[in-house]
């Protein structure tokens, strides 16, 4: 058990920042979703790192909840993408600038 906490946190931060840059740069809805999943994963990694460091299970329980949340988010988000594609024939976030479908 000699992996330093510092390096785990840096790995989590790096993955989070890569996901953030992806969300800012891309305009394809599905790729933006992929980057959000990446950011959720980075947060999970820091939770697990602190759970290990503090020898407590609470962090792992939170990660469990975040995974359920990610599954729900992916289901609803992809349903939205399908509904949008069916009416607009586009997956470009910049084309979706009206409040109505």
């Amino acid at each position, binding site marked *: *058990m*000699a992996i330093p*906490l510092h*390096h*785990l*946190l*840096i*790995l989590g*931060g*790096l*993955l989070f*920042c*890569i*996901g*953030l*840059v*992806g969300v*800012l*740069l*891309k*305009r*394809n809805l*599905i*790729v933006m*979703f*992929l*980057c959000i*999943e*990446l950011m959720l*994963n980075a947060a*999970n990694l820091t939770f*697990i790192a602190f*759970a*290990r*460091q503090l*020898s407590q*299970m609470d962090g*792992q*329980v939170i*990660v469990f*909840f975040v*995974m*359920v*949340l*990610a*599954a*729900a*988010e*992916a*289901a*609803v988000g*992809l*349903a*939205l*993408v*399908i*509904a949008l594609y069916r009416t607009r024939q586009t*997956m*470009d976030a*910049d084309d979706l600038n009206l409040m109505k479908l």
Partner: protein
Amino acid sequence: MQEVLFYIFALLAIAGALSVILQKKTMYAAISLVITFMAVSIIYFLLGAQFIGLLQLIIYAGAIMVLFLIVILLLDPFSEIFLRNQSLAWVGLAVLLGAGLFGILYTAFGQAPVEIVAPPVPPGELTGHTQSLADVLFKQYLLPFEVISILILVAILGAVILAKKRIS
């Protein structure tokens, strides 16, 4: 040995994450994300969170990514991903923002009290096994567990209603 494995899989995770935002096609970006998820799952195993590592493989790399791949195949599998704005200034600004956030995080982590004295785990007691996780989940966190099961039920119903074909 453990450290060596950690650094190998950390590099693999970062490479996969970079590949997600550098790939030109949606499909390849999704496959790159699967690589990242698997590397992170192995890091969970190295940190002694076996059950969470398995969940990561089954739910993230399995279920969620298959859902993504099916939707990509359903819509347009070979579409090119365009940048939001072709101007180099926007790309530079986004990368600068990401790098700035990482700089802030890096300095914050440097000042964090890393040497938190963890109570030593008694030998023979394996934290991260299914049993110890279930002990906490179904006693201390029972109410959040029930609430989040309602959340996922609502999400499933919402997804079905949203994606349903409208009959006009």
